[in-house]
């Protein structure tokens, strides 16, 4: 009789033959491959394959609460669990094809994917491109007013992104901007700034807002209700 873990956990292990192994829990990974002399029987792994996963692929794994992104040679795959059967499902995130990946941040049950072009995409059940307009922040564009390409840059070029529960922070030109997001999984009693993660901003932070930092910021990180910045010396 197969051993069944009381709590429903899977473990997924990349593999020697283009497959992703899906195990139920961490112990199963630690026990893999099973010792034939042992009486302990860990749950057997589920094996998922995908053409983008090759035996020599450079794969980086990012995880949220119930899903994962696998960045593989600039391709992005998402692993989710079927809501009805709980079976793991692996699929390419088509909307990110060819864009490249500079950084991934997980917050709540979604991801923020920063591309080398300075664009951010939110990945959850769907994909949404994040827009941070200059006008709302009172930032002039860098064009010379001649109607050229730079004059059309009405959005900030983003250098980093960090997602928490109920807020998104981005970094542009050493400054941090953030907003709350009512679609986050955070409990409704909490606002985007309940714990001061956005600097004690009053009210519902629906619009992008500058978050003052002690200096020029080079990286940003987020916890569920906290924001960390790496300030240049």
């Amino acid at each position, binding site marked *: 009789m197969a051993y069944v873990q009381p709590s429903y956990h899977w473990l997924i292990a990349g593999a020697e033959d283009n497959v992703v192994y899906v195990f139920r829990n961490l112990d199963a990974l630690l026990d893999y491959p099973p010792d034939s002399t042992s009486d302990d029987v860990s749950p057997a792994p589920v094996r998922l394959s995908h053409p983008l996963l090759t035996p020599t692929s450079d794969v980086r794994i990012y995880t949220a609460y119930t899903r994962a992104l696998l960045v593989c040679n600039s391709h992005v795959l998402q692993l989710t669990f079927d809501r009805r059967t709980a079976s793991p499902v692996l699929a390419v995130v088509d909307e990110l094809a060819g864009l490249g990946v500079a950084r991934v941040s997980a917050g709540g049950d979604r991801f923020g994917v920063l591309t080398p072009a300075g664009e951010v995409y939110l990945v959850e059940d769907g994909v949404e491109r994040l827009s941070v307009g200059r006008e709302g922040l009172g930032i002039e564009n860098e064009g010379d007013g001649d109607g050229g390409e730079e004059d059309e840059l009405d959005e900030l070029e983003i250098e980093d992104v960090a997602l928490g529960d109920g807020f998104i922070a981005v970094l542009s030109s050493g400054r941090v901007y953030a907003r709350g997001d009512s679609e986050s999984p955070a409990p409704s009693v909490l606002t985007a700034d309940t714990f001061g993660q956005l*600097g004690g901003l009053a009210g519902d932070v629906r619009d992008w807002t500058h978050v003052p930092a002690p200096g020029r910021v080079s990286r940003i990180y987020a916890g569920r209700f906290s924001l960390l910045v790496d300030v240049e010396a």
Partner: protein
Amino acid sequence: MLYAQGNNIANALAPGGPSTINHFVPLSGTGTAPDARGDLSDDAQQAKDRVLWHNWTATITPNLRIGDDPVLASIPTASERNARVIGVDRPLGVLVDRVLKVLGGREARPWDDVGVTELGVLAWRTCNQVTTG
């Protein structure tokens, strides 16, 4: 240098500080830099300032562990630049040089990357480096 603001209920930002911090304070919360810069090169300083893990119960950098989470005292050290701390809400283990070390002293190898969700744990290893055991 790392600064933080937000939820400090479990002292993961500033030990001994208020539970809510609404302005950036040095990560140590002592009013001084947590990492003495000394003669470190920019690259070395960047490595030290890298946040390996952060959530509401714990913050881990290559040379700093902050927070009330009792697992902080038990998880393996992660001073290497390429260390990866795994966990969902709490840190569960450290992956360094393809060796995953978890709470309780168990370890697994060789894994190139490992990630944890509430529904399971993910890991990856390349073909030409697979061994048994």
